[in-house]
């Protein structure tokens, strides 16, 4: 079953960047879902005869200070990376998109109020919000998701609003209004479907950002606590041994790099495909 060339899926499959991105994401997804089956060692097993080892046949990506297998911990850590990216972006969409739509449909002071709050969130450094949240409600996966999710809200709300504003002035919306459709129906049936493409793009890019943010939080010791491995806390634990065993830092670093790159390439390709103004432009 090969998708037709003119569908979105078909165009994605013909875009090498997108294929690369989707392949990496799929690989990480499979690893995360089947972690127990594919991990070569138990992530907590300590091999005291191979401490801080480089890549060997026994430990393909080496071991950490406690002799734990880096590859196994990366695989387990991918669960956190994906949970955070999906969770945080999901939260951003669920809150941000309706806010954007409400802004446009109601307008006036409601629009102003919502957008000024969004501005306030944007100017506040999101990592700081995360640190404050962790101090207030404790270190957990949920904290990280909420903190990064909040940072996603204003971007999604703004994009939804700007798209919806454009769509609202189109004739078919006026026609629906004239036909007596309710505001909610117009919002959901007519405006949203025509404004969603950039939101999808932004959400995809946001997932890359979420992976990066989770790593940053893990590195400064906020969020998911050891012994649960995350790519961020693996980097943090590796940092003192940067000179002694570089492989320990390189492995999670490359993992973060690849997954963020994958989300960005996919998002980029999606934008090109979904943006009508770029349609047909030769690249």
């Amino acid at each position: 079953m090969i998708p037709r060339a003119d569908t979105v899926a078909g165009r994605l499959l013909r875009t090498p960047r997108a294929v690369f991105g989707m392949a990496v994401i799929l690989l990480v997804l499979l690893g995360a879902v089947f972690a127990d089956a594919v991990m070569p060692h138990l992530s907590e097993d300590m091999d005291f005869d191979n401490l801080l080892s480089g890549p060997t046949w026994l430990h393909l990506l080496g071991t950490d200070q406690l002799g734990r297998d880096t590859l196994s911990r990366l695989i387990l850590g991918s669960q956190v990376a994906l949970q955070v990216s999906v969770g945080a972006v999901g939260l951003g969409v669920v809150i941000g998109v309706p806010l954007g739509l409400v802004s446009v449909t109601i307008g006036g002071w409601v629009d102003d109020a919502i957008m000024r709050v969004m501005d306030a969130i944007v100017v506040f450094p999101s990592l700081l919000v995360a640190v404050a949240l962790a101090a207030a409600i404790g270190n957990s996966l949920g904290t990280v998701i909420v903190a990064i999710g909040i940072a996603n809200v204003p971007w999604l709300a703004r994009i939804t609003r700007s798209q919806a504003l454009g769509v609202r002035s189109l004739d078919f919306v006026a026609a629906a209004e004239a036909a007596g459709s309710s505001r909610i129906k117009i919002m959901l049936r007519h405006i949203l479907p025509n404004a969603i493409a950039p939101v999808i793009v932004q959400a995809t890019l946001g997932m890359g950002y979420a992976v990066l943010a989770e790593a940053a939080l893990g590195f400064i010791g906020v969020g998911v606590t050891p012994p649960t491995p995350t790519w961020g806390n693996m980097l943090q634990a590796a940092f003192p041994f940067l000179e002694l065993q570089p492989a320990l830092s390189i492995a999670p670093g490359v993992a973060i790099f690849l997954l963020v790159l994958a989300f960005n390439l996919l998002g980029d390709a999606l934008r090109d495909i979904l943006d009508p103004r770029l349609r047909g432009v030769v690249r």
Partner: protein
Amino acid sequence: MANTLRRRTLLKASLAGAGATVLLARHGRAAAEKPQYGGKLRVAYQLAPGALDPVVGRSGGDAYYWRQFVDQLVDADPALKPRPETSLAESWDVSDPKKVMLKLRRGVLFHDDTPFNAEAVKFNIERLLDPATKATPRAAFSAVETVDAVDEHLVRINLKKPWGSVLSTLADRGGAMNSPTAVKALGADYAFKPVSTGPFKIAEFVSGSHVRFVRNEKYWGRDAAGNPLPYLDEIVVNTVKDPTVQVSALKAGEMDLIYLPYREVGNFLADKTYNVRKFDGGGIALTLQYNRAKPPMDNMNLRLAVAYAINPELINRAVFFNRAIIAKGGMWPTGAWAYDPTVKRPHYDVAKAREYLKLGGKPNGFEMDAIIWPSEVNTPMAEIIRAQLGAIGIKLNLKVYEVTVATEKFNYGGEAPIFLTSWSRYPEPDWNASLIYRSNGYYNAGKIKDDRLDALIDAGAAVADIEKRKPIYRQIDEIVLGEAHMVPMLYGVTYAAARKNLIGIDDVFGWDAKMYLHRMWLKKT
């Protein structure tokens, strides 16, 4: 098993080897060079000072700062042996259990030109005994009744009870002399603007950044050749939290002297650009501190099960790069006169651990909280302990707090039955005995009354003769280790590294393994 033995032997061999390096280095420098005056010494240390006044500071790390500008009433060498030639008291008499006589050095001035005399000593000890001062070492002076200035340079301390640890105690915070004029004038501000008699005086204190000391031109001290001390113009002690940053700063030439993280020791020993010195037993790298009032650690057999289940050798290998020392005695580590490696105590043995689990009525294990404070060594250490205890069915939930919070929550909050922590080097056994083992001790988390221990602690503190004190502290060890009140697992080894042009690094460690910079000098290149 054979494998384990081989590793132990190797470990010993490598430690002996390191010791030999130091000896050779000392030997090579035997032909003493003529010291050069001037220069600025730049030192990095991890913790900011809690206070600069030694009497009110509560953090063990404060000594890195106050040591440099104070003189002790009784100074001590690295083995905690009193050293009259560097002390403010020239001689003393402690033979009478009812009083201590101190004959003071003449012609000594505080940095503010206040004369140092018997009245000043009386003022200092009375200040320390006044509850309003909130002096950290006050408990260690509980034997003092009154102080008399017999004449300008003779002090008599009248005692309520015998005070066996008097000389060691005067070598610590409580024996640091502060200017009465400055103390009276500054009030609470004195904590960060102290004035003493030492070779350096405080020139600048920038919170969280550094403390700068400059030469005391009027210092009384002379070196062996009769040259006036100190040699250096300035010392800057920088607060640098991250050990990795300290190492880079030393390598980049921004620092002259730092303490080495264990992981860097191998590299630095191999690098001929630096001198590396070590102090065996410079601290207690890991100790299990129990709250004996909190279940399940109110059960002696379960406490012993935990102590037997932890293998310090693997911790040493993974966390300390085999450079720490497996603890064989109690809380007075290697090099302290009270250290006794022959005392019966828990050593790693899983079979015994399971046996004690059965005796404790929990053959299949149990679950409990453990407090830790995060650091480059504590965090991985706790992970290993969790895994090792997990292997015999003890599930440990780690509660992580910053160090001062952790100490408070464990000792006063009753927050967990066990604390995995480290400890400073206290070679005078009465300090740890009074603080940790006595029923009302500050660090006795369970505050359980134990008449046997209280009597032994009193007996140990009452005599001055070390040979008479030794068997008493052995008995204390037998109770404390045998019933698992507090079980040290690893003694630390403190490493310092300096650029080659820093002369005097052989004397860098005081008896508490903290930095002592009075006699350093920088060779001009």
